């Protein structure tokens, strides 16, 4: 049975803890003069990106290379895929080349689950690098790692985290809500009803519609990317109105409690969900999220492909 990371549930609490501990070692590796270890020498990691994603693809490839894995990269324009072979045929072709892990990004929710089914018995691990609006588990892990690093307590237990914006279309939000809650944080979603999933009773979070009411007592203000196309779907009247009601401008940023941090999964729309100057405040940890992303993905690759825990390894 292959180990997959399709969603945070695939890791469970113990797996998340193991990955976070491994990440500390990977951060240390990253600080070395030659930031490379032979941990995955001889292994092959294929990245299969059906959707453009500069940062996630580069982050995974950098992670694999720092562990000395061989990498293959497939970037597929969706148009040529439509004319050509089925998703399953593409995946089986890549498997036939001999890979140990497939990192997949797809605009359709659920693709990593389909891949895992088609690859059953092959020993290939599937890593979800973002599927549709569904899950982006390595983003959640790097967010958790970043929060732990920024916060005195070093854990999420008891923290209050606001996730602001387009939750409905956000794989980051879905992974974050369940991961943050699993680690003991209290999560509040802040968005207009049109940008919330239609049925979220049963989700481990609260819902609010007034950002100003929420800001005063959060430890983390997590802003989601707001896409211009949402205005054409009548989900919000305009980006201008969205920015006025849900954007983190300087005035709102000043109302955050001391020690609270501002996060964003990128790419940012400065002036929409986040004011340009807010993104550059010292408590905005957005570039740290990116930096931690490489170490977290190293940890995930190592954890899935070797099954070894932190205590057993020295790099």
């Amino acid at each position, binding site marked *: 049975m292959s180990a997959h990371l399709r969603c945070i549930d695939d890791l469970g609490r113990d797996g998340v803890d193991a990955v976070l501990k491994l990440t500390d070692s990977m951060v240390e590796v990253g600080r070395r003069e030659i930031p490379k270890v032979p941990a995955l020498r001889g292994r092959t990691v294929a990245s299969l990106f059906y959707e453009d994603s500069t940062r996630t693809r580069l982050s995974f490839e950098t992670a694999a290379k720092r562990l000395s894995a061989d990498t293959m990269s497939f970037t597929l324009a969706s148009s040529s895929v439509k004319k050509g072979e*089925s*998703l*399953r*045929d593409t995946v089986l072709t890549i498997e036939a080349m001999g890979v140990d892990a497939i990192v997949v990004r*797809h605009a*359709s*929710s*659920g*693709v990593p*689950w*389909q891949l895992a*089914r088609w690859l059953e018995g092959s020993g290939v691990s599937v890593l979800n690098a973002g*599927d*549709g*609006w*569904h*899950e982006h588990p390595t983003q959640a892990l790097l967010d958790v790692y970043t929060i732990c690093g920024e916060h005195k307590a070093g854990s999420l237990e008891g923290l209050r985290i606001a996730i602001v914006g387009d939750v409905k279309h956000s*794989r980051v939000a*879905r992974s974050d809500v369940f991961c943050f809650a699993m680690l003991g944080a209290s999560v509040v979603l802040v968005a207009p009803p049109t940008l919330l*999933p*239609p*049925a*979220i*009773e*049963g*989700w481990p979070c609260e819902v609010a519609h007034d950002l100003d009411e929420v800001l005063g007592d959060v430890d983390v203000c997590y802003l989601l990317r707001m896409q211009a196309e949402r205005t054409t779907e009548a989900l919000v009247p305009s980006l201008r109105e969205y920015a006025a009601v849900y954007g983190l401008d300087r005035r709102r940023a000043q109302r955050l409690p001391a020690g609270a941090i501002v996060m964003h999964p990128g790419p940012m729309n400065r002036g929409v969900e986040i004011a340009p100057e807010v993104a550059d405040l010292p408590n905005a940890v957005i570039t740290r999220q990116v930096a931690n992303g490489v170490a977290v993905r190293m940890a995930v690759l190592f954890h899935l492909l070797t099954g070894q825990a932190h205590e057993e390894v020295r790099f």
Partner: protein
Amino acid sequence: MDATSSVVLQGGTVVDRTGARRADVVVREGVVVAVGLEVPVPDGARVLDCGGCWVGPGLVDLHTHLRQPGREEAETIESGSRAAALGGYTTVVAMPNTTPPIDSAGVVREIVALAAKALCTVEVSGAITVGRAGERLAPMAELAGLGVRLFTDDGSGVQDGRLMRRALEYARPLGVLLAEHCEDEALAAGGVMHEGEWSSRMGVPGQPAEAEEVMVMRDIALARLTGARVHLQHLSTARSVGLVREAKAAGLRVTCEATPHHLTLTDEACRGFDTVFRVNPPLRPAADRDAVQAGLLDGTVDAVATDHAPHDQEAKEQPFDQAPPGMLGLETAMALTLGQLGLGDDPQTLFALLSWQPGAVLGLDAGAGLVAEGTTADLCAIDPGERWVVDPARLASRSRNTPYAGRELVGRVRHTLHQGEPVVLDQEAQR
């Protein structure tokens, strides 16, 4: 074995509208010539063992996609009719969303010609609008003249209420039935599963139950306005069933059907993103499934209709939101209905829902629901106790997209006679 030989269905329980009784059935030249106990077996007659079986009128499916012309890799009239015969069907209504669609006399004639060799009767339906585009009326009178009894734009609903009104008015003197795929496309907004708890968690665009229900409401209103009959296809929500119940109580001429999958499965089945569960209308929550069951049992829903929708493997091996909606139904519908509605002691309700009520909706002779001297020998023998496991590789359909793979079902068709010809004997298709 040809249709002119005699066949005796021996040792079963004959089930029809008049009741159920132990009797043998003698068939000659495509017609039932005797029904009774200890009727003499004609010389040279083929005797079919029906011990333990219900012998009733052949099943009628109001909603079958045979895919021909245009999608022969998924199904043909031949393969689809074989699947139908194995499922106990002797009549299926072929939906018009073929390529080209059935909106002209030429396509109707082509299908009629292809269906001459089918293992069951293929009733050709026609599109309500040209190209199923929802803009102009198809030549309904011309198609009715060729024998088309049912018109639908199935695959989509007629979005324009005025156009649907005109279609109902225009068709009224033709004695044909207009059937609607109830889905308001603006509200459905491209949703690929039921909008609710599961779609929210899965990050999959959903379509709310109301996308179906507002069109059910509109078409009931149009039935009132025009006085025409309306048949509502594959209803899937509790409120849709409730609306039809009220409309029938008010004396409106509305009929409806429900599928075996909406009777047995819920939207939770989609959680693993297996595209075999992608279907339109989508699988709904348990409360809707239960309401559809109740509607079938209390007479609100007139018929179980399969919405048999073959798709080749390659098409279903796409991402969940890109795979075409639809699932196979013909070979499993009877057993699922029997099992899910608990009809093991009630063969009359089973045959009512699968045979004579759909027959009556369409105005077929089968609507009489009689197994009697002089009736056409469209018959099936069902063994209600036979256990079997659905194996997609062994289905007669050219496609494999059944959501019941590996599931054990109880109840199986043993024999099917189509116009006197034994097309299925001992669970095997004869050609």
